[in-house]
């Protein structure tokens, strides 16, 4: 597999086109789509958290389709077992041997729908896969496809029948987005238009897995000046110094912030990072990391803004 030779400008056009296409399906949510895309381009896993029926699954399907990746979906329920996600060794009568039956996790994009409806045992089945890009079954380590993304959706914690994701697992998601209700105009257009699901089928998938890896390398090469690192570290210090938090952003969180900012800058067609990029991705980076102790989304959003306001741009 050779690394694709892509020039920045055409890649940027392509990505913008993807955002536009996705915007045709999930109406009026372009900034969120862009954030979701930057999360995936930075190689992070995405958590979508909102009320049921606002289009979380649609967004996940749209992204998977646009990226042209192999896609599988697992509906998490309270009786889901780890083997349902990972797969299991099954005895074959004819050959008299055990055969590993691959679970849905062996895919490039895994949509874990309503992840917090499953028990912690089933949730943790995803853990190793998300962090190490591999799973261990029956003492055997099996690599996952490359690239591997998890897009998970979850219902608000206040809903009935949910097992909140532990912080350790939340931290493994790079970004968390909420979609919110559509605006009046957007909803009207949706109501008038075709069925969203069928629209997805009509999307052209524009990228190959190799191209995605090449783009991820390009994102990695986006320049970060010392001044920007100063700014980033000041923000992180701010999250850690605040006594109202139960601990600030983890180093994994600060890496996620940097990667997200680079990816965002890349989508903005720049090869260097600006404070604005950090500001753009910061709320979604800390959303899920703080919401568990803040409790409410709105509060997490306020918190993010407060932190940003307290750190001067160098």
């Amino acid at each position, binding site marked *: 597999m050779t690394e694709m030779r892509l020039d920045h400008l055409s890649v940027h056009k392509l990505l913008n086109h993807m955002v536009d296409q996705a915007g045709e399906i999930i109406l009026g949510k372009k900034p969120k789509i862009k954030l979701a895309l930057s999360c995936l381009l930075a190689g992070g896993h995405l958590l979508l958290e909102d009320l049921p029926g606002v289009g979380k699954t649609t967004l996940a399907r749209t992204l998977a389709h646009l990226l042209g990746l192999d896609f599988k979906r697992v509906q998490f329920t309270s009786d889901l077992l780890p083997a349902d996600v990972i797969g299991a060794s099954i005895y074959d009568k004819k050959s008299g041997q055990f055969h590993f039956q691959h679970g849905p996790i062996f895919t490039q994009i895994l949509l874990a729908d309503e992840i917090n409806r499953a028990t912690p045992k089933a949730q943790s089945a995803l853990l190793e896969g998300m962090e190490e890009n591999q799973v261990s079954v029956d003492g055997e380590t099996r690599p996952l496809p490359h690239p591997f993304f998890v897009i998970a959706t979850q219902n608000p914690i206040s809903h009935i029948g949910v097992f909140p994701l532990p912080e350790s697992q939340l931290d493994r998601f790079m970004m968390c987005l909420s979609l919110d209700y559509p605006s009046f105009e957007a909803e009207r257009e949706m109501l008038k238009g075709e069925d969203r699901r069928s629209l997805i089928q009509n999307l052209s998938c524009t990228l190959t897995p190799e191209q995605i890896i090449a783009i991820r390398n390009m994102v990695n090469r986006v320049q970060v000046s010392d001044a920007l690192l100063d700014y980033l570290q000041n923000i992180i210090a701010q999250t850690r110094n605040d006594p109202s938090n139960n601990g600030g952003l983890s180093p994994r969180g600060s890496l996620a912030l940097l990667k997200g900012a680079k990816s965002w800058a890349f989508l903005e067609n720049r090869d260097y990072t*600006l404070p604005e990029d950090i500001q753009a991705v910061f709320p979604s980076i800390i959303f899920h990391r703080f919401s568990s102790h803040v409790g409410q989304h709105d509060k997490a959003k306020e918190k993010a803004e407060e932190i940003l306001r307290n750190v001067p741009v160098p």
Partner: protein
Amino acid sequence: MSNKINPYYINQSSTRLLLLTFLFSSLPHLTRVPPLLVALIVAFALWRLIISRYSLATPGIYLRLSLIIISVVLIFFSHSSTIGREAGLSMLLIMLALKLVEIKTKRDTLLFLYLNYFVVVTNFLYSQSILISLYLFTVVWLITTTIIAVNRQGSEIRFRAHMRVSGLLITQAIPLMLVMFVLFPRISGPLWKLPKSESDGKTGLSENMSPGDISKLIKSNKIAFRVKFTSAIPETKNRYWRGPVLSHFNGRAWTVDRQLSRRIMYHHPKSTLSTYTITLEPNYSKLLPALDTPVSWPNSGFMSSEHVIYAFQTVNNRFQYQLSSSNKPISRQTLPGKIRNRYLQLPQSYNPLSTTFISNFRRQHPNDISLVNNLLQYFRNNKFIYTLQPPKLGKHSVDEFMFKTRRGFCEHYANAFVVMMRMAKIPARVVTGYQGGVYNKLGDYFIVRQSDAHAWAEVWIDNQGWRRIDPTAAVSPDRIERGIEASLNDDSAWTGVLYSTNSRFTGVALYWDNMRNGWNQWVLGYGETLQNEMLAMLGLLSAGWLSKTITLAVIVGGLLLLIALYYRYRDSFKRVEKSQAIYNRFCRKLSSADLPREPWEGPKDYVIRISAARADLHTEADKITKLYIQIRYADQPSTEKIKELAHYVKYFKP
């Protein structure tokens, strides 16, 4: 002119500068290149001047090719070769002059100038003296200045400013130069030997002596060697520096008798010693002069049975060695008959008058010692004159000298004396060498020049051995006591040399020679041995050349890296700081226009807000912000961009 000149075109003042640089870097060479070729070089240089003056086209490819061929042919005819030091030098200079003619692009100009550095280096193939080094150092300065001037052609900056810059550059390079000098691996061996041309004039004693040889030598003011005594300094009259011993006479010339001059394997010193160190100038022979008579010698040489020290290899470079000598004559009880006969050898049917004279003399003085003394007395009493311009002698040189002309210098006296001794059946031989030397108080050493060359005699006295007899001393004691100048009383044609030799007694000249001696020993003589000593002093074990190279590379590379990093980061750091100060000024201006930047607001968001509030400011603010972002966040802090930013902010009026 129909041909258009390239967009890059050196202007007239640059051309003059190039020519001047070329002139100075090749100036010492001009005497080494045949006049015809010098004329060719000058013609090419003038051509360039004309091209620049009238904006003519440079010659085309065919013309250039034919010029090359013509030049090579001329070089071949002048040197009868195209390789070797002299021909190579001519080739270099002529091709460089041709390059000058064809300069079209900046690359050509720079190439020409870089090659001038090479011309500078080639000067060291001929001379490595202090003066020439200082001169070449100045030329390097000039070349560097010219490179800077050519690079900034068309700017208003004056030549003197360029000189200052290049002077600074060279000064900065000096520490590096010193480190390289001390640590650069020296390899003793043919790799570093200077090429030597056949036609190179050699001065020094040779293995034969025909009339006029020594008088030629005496006119040379070149230094033969320097001596530093570590024991008591012998008196002037005893400072005979022994050179080749000549035992075979063919009637005209004296040569070394190979049968008599063999390597001896052991030697038993018996009497008091003088110990001293000699720094010998290259004499392109194997002779190592030593104080009469040597008793110990360096390992790189041997002593012959005639007590002359020879090196195993030709001395092509300055060479330092330690010796010790006895002031007593060599004593040996007997001379075997075969050897004795060789020391009595004389050609037949020469000098009949002297033969008769000596047989009479022998009858009067049957004792060998009294014969010797009386012959010396004869010289003293018969108005023999010491002169460097003796009349020419015919076939019977001894007869004519003894009874007709009676004018001559050391070689005539030694020749006549030894021939007559042999006629009297006393074994005798001619010894050539140097006598005396001038003491340099500043450096506490003696300078012995070619003009101190001398010839004397040694005679065999039974039961005593070889005795040194200097017939010149009998005629002109001053020559031996006070040096050659004092002894000459009749020469007018020789004033030029006389003047220069006299001047060496002045303090300044001695001081100068002391400096030269230091230069020879510490700069030119800094070879493998001295380097190892130096490294040992610095605490580094004497290492092989490979580890020396690595040490050098690490030290020099590390030093340069540190300097480079320092400048790289100091500058960009400063620039970034500066750009922020300028940006803050921009924000203050806007703040007074009621558009203050929030401390947490990024520059891009800010400019969007400004543009929304005041559309008239959009263009300017956007320009400034973009520049600022490039400097601060895109890591492109160039001086030009900062200047531009400062300029925009200065004229930004919200």
